């Protein structure tokens, strides 16, 4: 699959896809989208980059091991649920804070933190499977 065209386009394509995955993740708050589908888009971006340029550039680009990423996501999800202990409400209750952000108001919530956790779990798990399969193909 290492044609010149693909190799030239792949880095731009994957960076665009990662950007889009973050958009989908944040959009998922009130509209279709969210952490799971965003994570899948990001994982396919890494897979495309891996097919075009080989697995080791992808691993370098990700910096952390994919499994560590998904563990971090799991940790984020648990902590997001645990925060409600301070509000005196049951586990996993959504809590909101409104932060002034220049002229707009930014609504942050534990739900968002949980969704980002889901995003990382999916990115980590799927890309570690995809990279392992691509590595086998090369050998």
């Amino acid at each position, binding site marked *: 699959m290492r044609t010149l065209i693909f190799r030239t386009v792949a880095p731009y394509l994957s960076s665009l896809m990662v950007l889009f995955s973050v958009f989908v993740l944040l959009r998922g708050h009130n509209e279709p989208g969210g952490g799971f589908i965003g994570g899948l888009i990001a994982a396919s971006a890494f897979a495309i980059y891996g097919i075009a340029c080989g697995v080791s550039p992808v691993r370098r680009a990700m910096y952390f091991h994919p499994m560590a990423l998904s563990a971090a996501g*799991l940790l984020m999800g648990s902590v997001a649920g645990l925060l409600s202990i301070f509000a005196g409400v049951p586990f996993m209750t959504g809590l909101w804070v409104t932060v002034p952000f220049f002229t707009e108001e930014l609504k942050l919530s534990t739900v968002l933190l949980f969704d980002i956790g889901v995003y990382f779990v999916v990115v980590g798990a799927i890309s570690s499977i995809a990279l392992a399969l691509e590595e086998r193909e090369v050998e």
Partner: protein
Amino acid sequence: MASSAKEPVDISVAMVTDPVPLADWLIIAPLILCTIFGAVLLMVRKDTRLQPIIALPGLVALVVIAAALLAHVVSSGPVTMTMGRWLPPFGISFTVDILGALLTLTGAIAALAGGIYGAGDVNNSGRRYGFYPFLFLMMAGVSGAFLTGDIFNLYVWFEVLLIASFGLLILGSERGQIDGATKYAFLNLVATTFFLIATGYLYGIFGTLNMADIALKAQAMEEKAPLVTLLSLYFLAFGMKAAAFPVNFWLPASYHTPRVVVSALFAGLLTKVGVYAFMRVALVLFPAERDMLGWVIAVIAALTMILGAMGALAQTDFRRLLGYLVISGIGIMFAGIALASPGGISAAIFYALHSMIVMTALYLASGLAARASGGFSIAGSGGIYTTHPFLAAVTLILFFAVSGLPPFSGLWPKVILVKASLDVGAWWLAGAVLLSGFLTTIAVGRVWVLSYWRPAPEAAAAGEEANLNPVIDYAPLVMLTAIVVVLGMFPQQILELSQVGTEQLLNPIEYIRSVFPAGGAQ
């Protein structure tokens, strides 16, 4: 932004508005702790030296939390926390009664023993492939299954513990392990599918998944026919998980392949989750239908315990023999459920606790014996009594306990069970319990005579002396054996607890009231 202009919404119709006392967080604490430790250990899994240093305090904390949860449940009755503040039956409830809390505590103790033993037994590659993260994630699944009050959520925890157990099973990536794991995975997936299908039917019938809500609605339901079918499907699914007789063959095919500590954890924890799930479904959700199926469960229980013990007699490998003893014990627990009298169920609960501890300890002892004498083959090893007298003495205690001989913990549940079966005139069930105990005694007696008592064969005696570390190798075994001895000598406390737990199962009014304080959502 738009909603702030409108008048405030009354959330009390859909949400929990009472503040949650801090003690109620104990319900969910075992799960959160296991998930967080699992995630952290996964992040540092390349640092093999750090793994046990993080994991062991985590396992100790799990035991402490589970003990605190049991104390909380004993003092204030069944407790409930509903996730995300939604009122049950729409929010997912976690409801803990004495049965759930007792099993969580015992499971945590078995996991702690396994974690300590694993620090000496699991090598660096095993740690790098994630022994400790998998252990914590499996414990998250096991405690989630014991604590949840929602039947679909129970299915989810089954999946969590199953996936983690696949990981543990193939930790060494050896040929035999992959072979065992394939059988294990395939049959467990079939069982899980039955569980899911049954839950789908159940949702179709009742339109709810909350166990307390189902228990209420099943009482009110007039036509019984679909419910008996439903309970039979659950019996098949959980019987497969628990390795009851006609669907038990996956267990001896896989439990002798992984590392000893993994077998020990599986034998202690996984089959008991199946028994627990069946207890919950049969006794709390569908008691009337269970009465109709009582004789089926009794026949299967009797066959399971006798064929398990006979299978143990035929083995030449120590670990395969232990696998059959696990199956035989499952039969005894199902016999208690079949009787469904207070005596029968409290015997089943007591025996489940005993079996979790004893089977974990026996697998750990078999690992030490294999290291001391050079293999798991019963006929090929010998002379452990002369080289390692302490190990031999501890193992003899465990052999007595697993056969149900006094003065150890296996005796009391069997005595109660025999009495309970004679009370209802089921002499054949009482006979089966006694016969299986007799066969088990012969089976373990054979191991004792051949591997421990008999002088070492010439070839094995020439081998080098195995060094067993007094702390890491013996501590978990001694800890578990001490529990076996204490339970056997002073059974009063556990007996009372399992009787109270039985009352809560047979008359789940407190369980239901803890989920629906107003007496029901209808």
